């Protein structure tokens, strides 16, 4: 990646994330796959801009609304789709699903379905890097709702006291599930909470690649240099509610339409062409290549076999448990 002009690289990731999200919604709607899906549409800029600042060996921890974070980090599309389809060829042999994508080879260490739980574990990954001196940085992704949970405060305090190489990236999409930001949050800017933990805190327009990129680059460089953690609050909006298919009556009338009108994707695409960073044809070629890759990934996923029933007893512990569904023996030995 050419750090001087990251824009096309950021667009490339945004294109993958947007197209992938669109395909997921189509496939779910068609009934070909069934899963709870927390759409990431509208929030692509954040992980795209963060990820161009990361090295392949860096770590991320992300949340249930996190397929975009993982793909941007380098998770292979095919493995994601096979996992979403519950197939044995998926990242986690189909045993994790959309809320638990894990792929250490891409640096995707934990995806959690529990709001607020990425930060304490990200600290541990960063602590390991601090101890071993491997130079890695860890990014913890989470939402605005998670900043009201105790784990957020415990983790930021510890990261600051231990000066850990970690970056806390809060996607503030204005709603904690169905509850509007101000109803549940005591402060106008989540980034101001950083002050309480003696670390830099910055609020940026998370739909604006240049702002997001500048904040991420500064924070990641700072972490890598051993100067400690940063809290980034990235303002954004999710276009398809909390869980895909839910009722959006909790939103103000017209709010969603207004925000969708400001979709960062076409805006950035247009800017790239007008500022001559790329031609229309080049961007179309990027999109078409990803569409094909996603086609192949969906086909691969659906054609792949489901895991054997015995997988229920595997990976619970390092050593496989004895037993079967009919006759569970959970002790140390069969009788």
């Amino acid at each position, binding site marked *: 990646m050419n750090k001087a002009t990251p824009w096309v690289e950021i667009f490339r990731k945004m294109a993958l994330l947007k197209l992938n999200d669109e395909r997921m919604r189509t496939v779910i709607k068609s009934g070909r796959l069934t899963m709870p899906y927390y759409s990431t549409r509208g929030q692509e800029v954040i992980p795209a801009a963060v990820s161009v600042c990361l090295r392949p060996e860096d770590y991320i921890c992300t949340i249930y609304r996190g397929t975009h974070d993982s793909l941007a980090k380098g998770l292979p599309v095919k493995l994601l789709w096979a996992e979403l389809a519950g197939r044995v060829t998926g990242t986690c042999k189909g045993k994790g699903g959309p809320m638990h994508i894990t792929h250490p080879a891409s640096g995707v260490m934990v995806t959690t379905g529990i709001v607020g739980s990425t930060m304490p574990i990200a600290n541990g990954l960063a602590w390991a890097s601090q101890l071993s001196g491997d130079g890695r940085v860890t990014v913890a992704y989470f939402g605005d709702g998670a900043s009201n949970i105790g784990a957020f405060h415990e983790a930021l305090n510890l990261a600051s006291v231990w000066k850990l190489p970690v970056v806390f990236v809060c996607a503030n999409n204005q709603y904690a599930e169905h509850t509007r930001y101000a109803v549940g949050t005591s402060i106008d800017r989540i980034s101001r909470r950083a002050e309480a933990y003696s670390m830099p805190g910055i609020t940026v327009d998370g739909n604006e690649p240049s702002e997001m990129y500048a904040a991420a680059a500064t924070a990641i460089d700072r972490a890598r240099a051993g100067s400690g953690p940063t809290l980034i609050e990235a303002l954004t909006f999710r276009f398809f509610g909390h869980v895909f298919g839910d009722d959006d009556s909790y939103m103000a009338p017209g709010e969603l339409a207004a925000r969708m009108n400001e979709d960062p994707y076409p805006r950035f695409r247009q800017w790239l062409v007008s500022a001559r960073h790329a031609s229309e044809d080049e961007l179309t070629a990027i999109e078409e290549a990803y569409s094909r890759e996603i086609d192949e990934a969906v086909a691969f996923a659906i054609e792949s076999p489901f895991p054997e029933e015995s997988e229920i007893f595997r990976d619970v*512990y390092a050593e496989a448990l004895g037993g079967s569904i009919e006759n569970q023996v959970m002790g140390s030995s069969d009788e």
Partner: protein
Amino acid sequence: MLQAINFALHDAMTEDSKVLVLGEDVGDDEGGGIIGVTRGLTRAFGPKRVRSTPIAEQAIVGAAIGSALCGYRPVAEIMLMNFTTVAMDMIVNHAAKLRFMSGGQTSVPITIRTMTGAGMSNGGQHSDFLEGWFAHTAGLKVVIPSNAADAYGLLRSCIRDPDPCLFVETLPLYWVSGQTIERGGSIPLGKARIAQSGTDVTVASYGRQVNDAVAVARRLSAEGISIEVLDMRTLSPLDTTALIESARKTRRVIVAHEAVQRFGPGAEIAAVIHEALFDRLLAPVRRVGAPFSPVPFSKPLETAYLPGERQIESAVREILKRSGKGA
């Protein structure tokens, strides 16, 4: 037992540079633990590997999990077992499940040390045995030693184990003296120990009640009652083979533990035995556990609450009476 645990930590850290210790007050500047279990570790291994933490149990277990995902072997101290409740999300949703949910790509080889036990006038929030919750969680191992030698050997195994282990230390056992500790060895997890051989009744137990059962066995042998005491050592994995073998021999089984009896580990152990040997038993399995109540403060109440020799002896006499052996 205090010394045994200190030796185990010391020896594990000497043997493997990936072993870390973290928790509230664990560093030597903070006294080496609130009662000195980790004393001397900072001096021996430095403040990078022995880190005192804020009072923040989620942050402690989270840091342990993350470092373990990268190949370290952290031993996290959660000072008292009741404080594990603050970190249940990290322990139950994350440490226990990451191996499975990642399809075996990641593992969480952490040990969580925690102490507890009634009898110290600590009241309702500093005394509970909550091991049943953790033994109910697939992916965790639960270890509860009854003596110093076992504490050393079992803790060494927990630290080497590829899975998350909860190591429960019974507070009043720290100061039991006169036990020899053999340094360097280890005891496999999931293997029970016959603490006392016998033929009439099996008392299956773990932790402090093993010692109570042995005392009862010695006393009642004068009356011609032969009690076998089985120290389970680990609750998860549970040594069902040893349990069933002993039950097949004595045909009368009592389960004794300090945890509240209702929905306690004794119910699971009783079920294992009934499922395997229902028609061979001379009497139903009896349970000895704490009353369905928080641990009380007032000394006479706390003493009455704690299951011990009195309750075990009376269970032995009742099971013998019921099955037609004089008592």
